[in-house]
């Protein structure tokens, strides 16, 4: 390792440590000189500047700069105050939030409880047509109890509500402006966040300007430019030539090469994502648990991770990655054991070769994952052909259960296990909501319900651990790996905070450009 590389790594460690110390809520520091423009690149166009109208990553990156939510995650994934300075749980179904006083929207108006009520109820109103309304579909109503006090009344007890209120589609918008014209608001959005909206040239860039009145201390930099560069090679070329200072996603294959560039700092951090194959548990012979276990024994997870993600990630034993609440290290990933796999197949009365098909999304990383899996299954006597379909078309087949095996990539964006466990493995979610395996297990349903409703974190944790153990045994999915998130920055860009939810949530309020 060269001295420069190790220095770059030290610098990165310092950045991460600073992030840990500061949490995601920025603490004003007298550090670097103010000013300058930071340009970062993302891969797709933000769909809209209106946080209640989408749930896509690029939009979230922008909203994250313009708006705030009631609460946020710190660097350890714990809930910390944001627009709400404190909160209390009242009974089973209601939460009281005390808003921070003196928080100003970019137009100078003060944030009040009315804005909170308006924003959260707007998100779940069918007329708003938000694809993220599910985040708060447990919300019955918001009561205004004072200028700076609201009460969220839920339909059912819902333990992970705070994690859902971290999600950016629950951002608080100024009620008066949106009421006046939602279209105009989407064109010139106004929030409480560290940056004010400057301009949005579709397909090209979003420009944001420092908010000098930001309640957590104004950003150091004057302008934040988010370039929209769809082609990964182009984005990497821009980073190498200094045209952009940070790239929020870099292809796993480029990590090793970019690490050798002394002008760059490359970081690989654990993510909340899972890459897997979903097994249709209603379709014979996969309705037999032994056949599903055979599939799980047949796969060499490490090898697939190497092929698909250049080894960047950790092998998975379940849907929740180690950074997600509810993860347990008690459940171990299936080791590759071809003898065991063949034995299970013959016990189940399956004659080999077993011919089947894998439905594959036509995304490069997914195809790179499916190919080695196909080869490994063959060694266990399972002849799977690959049916590569465009994402939208594949989704339709998956919703309808028209597949035997199918690729899957999912993220627990709230960092709370409920988000995945309920959607993916509860029998209420069979079909489109997410349980494409069409998996039913009453005990798992009960444990997931406990995790959802019980207010005691320890009880929840135990419930998830038990559920994960049963799911591993029932093998409705072939859990493969939790891919890492890789991003890169110019070495002169300092003090950028990337929270555990990932680079999508990049925080540059403390960032500065220096030597």
């Amino acid at each position, binding site marked *: 390792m060269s001295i420069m590389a190790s220095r770059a790594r030290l610098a990165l460690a310092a950045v991460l440590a600073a992030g840990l110390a500061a949490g995601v809520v920025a603490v004003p520091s007298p550090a670097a000189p103010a000013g300058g423009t930071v340009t970062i690149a993302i891969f797709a166009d933000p769909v809209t500047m209106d946080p209640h109208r989408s749930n896509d990553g690029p939009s979230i990156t922008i909203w994250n700069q313009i708006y705030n939510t009631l609460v946020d995650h710190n660097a350890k994934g714990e809930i910390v105050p944001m627009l709400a300075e404190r909160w209390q749980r009242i009974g089973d179904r209601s939460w009281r939030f005390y808003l921070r006083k003196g928080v100003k929207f970019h137009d100078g108006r003060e944030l009040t409880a009315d804005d909170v009520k308006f924003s959260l109820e707007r998100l779940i109103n069918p007329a708003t*047509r938000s694809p993220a309304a599910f985040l708060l579909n447990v919300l019955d109503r918001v009561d205004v109890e004072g200028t700076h006090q609201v009460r969220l009344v839920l339909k059912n007890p819902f333990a992970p509500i705070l994690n859902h209120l971290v999600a950016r589609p629950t951002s608080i918008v100024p009620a008066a402006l949106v009421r006046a014209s939602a279209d105009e608001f989407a064109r010139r959005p106004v929030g409480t966040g560290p940056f004010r909206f400057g301009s949005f040239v579709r397909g*090209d860039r979003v420009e944001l300007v420092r908010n000098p009145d930001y309640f957590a201390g104004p950003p150091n930099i004057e302008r934040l430019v988010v370039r929209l560069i769809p082609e990964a090679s182009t984005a990497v070329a821009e980073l190498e030539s200094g045209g952009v200072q940070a790239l929020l996603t870099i292809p796993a294959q480029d990590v090793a090469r970019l690490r050798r560039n002394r002008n760059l700092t490359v970081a690989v951090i654990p993510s909340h994502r899972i890459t897997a194959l979903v097994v249709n548990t209603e379709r014979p012979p996969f309705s037999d648990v032994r056949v599903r276990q055979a599939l799980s024994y047949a796969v060499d997870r490490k090898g697939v991770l190497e092929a698909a993600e250049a080894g960047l990630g950790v092998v998975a034993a379940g849907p929740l990655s180690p950074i997600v609440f509810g993860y347990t290290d008690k459940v171990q990933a299936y080791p590759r054991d071809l003898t065991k796999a063949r034995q299970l197949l013959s016990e189940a009365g399956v004659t080999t070769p077993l011919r089947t098909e894998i439905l594959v999304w036509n995304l490069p990383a997914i195809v790179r994952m499916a190919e080695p899996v196909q080869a490994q299954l063959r060694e266990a006597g399972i002849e799977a052909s690959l049916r590569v379909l465009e994402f*939208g078309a594949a989704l339709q087949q998956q919703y309808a259960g028209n597949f035997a095996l199918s690729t899957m990539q999912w993220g627990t964006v709230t960092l709370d296990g409920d988000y995945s466990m309920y959607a993916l493995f509860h029998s209420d979610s069979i079909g489109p*909501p997410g349980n494409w395996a069409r998996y039913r297990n009453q005990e798992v349903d009960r444990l997931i319900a406990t995790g959802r409703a019980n207010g005691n974190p320890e009880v929840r944790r135990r419930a998830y651990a038990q559920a994960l153990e049963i799911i591993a045994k029932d093998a409705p999915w072939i859990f493969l790996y939790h891919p890492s998130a890789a991003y890169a920055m110019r070495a002169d860009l300092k003090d950028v905070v990337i929270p555990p939810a990932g680079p999508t949530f990049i925080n540059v309020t403390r960032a500065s450009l220096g030597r």
Partner: protein
Amino acid sequence: MTAYIVRRLVATAGVLFGVTLLVFLMLHLTPGDPVAIMIGGQGGYADPQMVENLRRELGLDRPLHEQYLRFLTHALRGDLGRSIRSDAPVIDEVLSRFPATAELAVAALVLSTAIGVGAGVTSAVRQYSVLDYASMVGALVGASLPVFWLGLMLMLLFAVTFPILPVSGRGAPFTEAVAALFQGDASLLGRSLRHLVLPAVALGLSRAAVVARLTRSSMLEVLRQDYVRTARSKGLPEGAVINRHALRNALVPVVTVVGLQFGFLLGGAVIAEAVFAWPGVGRLAVDSILARDYPVVQGCVLLVAAVFVILNLLVDVLYGYLNPRIRFA
């Protein structure tokens, strides 16, 4: 002439109607549902009640013919509807992106025509010379290079290894840059042009090859005509023979192709736009197709089709000026 143009314009309306119908049917026959993609593609929990609400709000639960008629009646009033994904008016989305594509396509067209006609004439006049072979081999290579690869190579060479041009992006809208020039500020134009060079070359080079080959063969044919011999025998200098007598006639088929090329460039710009992060309508169309954002796809196709049809009309009118023997009744 006027009657001819009016007739063609009426036919244009018919063509555009056909295009909308075809695109509408093709989109709706493609498997995949915009609501499912919107929720599933963003990694969310697709609550069945919510999906149903969304579909109803968007009118996707109505029968197909009803959806099409609604689109058509709104379109006739100049309202192309709203994007399913962003809820923004389609007309805003499309028109905000079209100038960038037009700018790139025009630049590529000018470049390809200049290079193509130049190379074609040279090789015809100096047939079987080294220059002829060199241009034709160049044309073959140019026509064979994929825009994607060529774009990346140009970028690596001229923006990364020798950083003389920007890697990607659009510096400034060309029209704004020209307006600024008139106010005495040339810097914007410089920025605009510098950003335009690489994508325009990447996109235009393969077209230049086509134009060059066509110009050459058309020119060779004309040079064998009697009137060219007459022009030479009455002692005109060779330059005048080539430029005034031969080239003008040889250009008739070339103009046809160049007109069609523009349509090709508008469509082909998709790839150059992706490689160079150029904020054009091609990328919008691709993103919208993947998201099954029906109204936006319709808007993009309608606009490109309209431009294409009108350009072809202009080309037909142009024939008359190039070759007075061609007249329209």
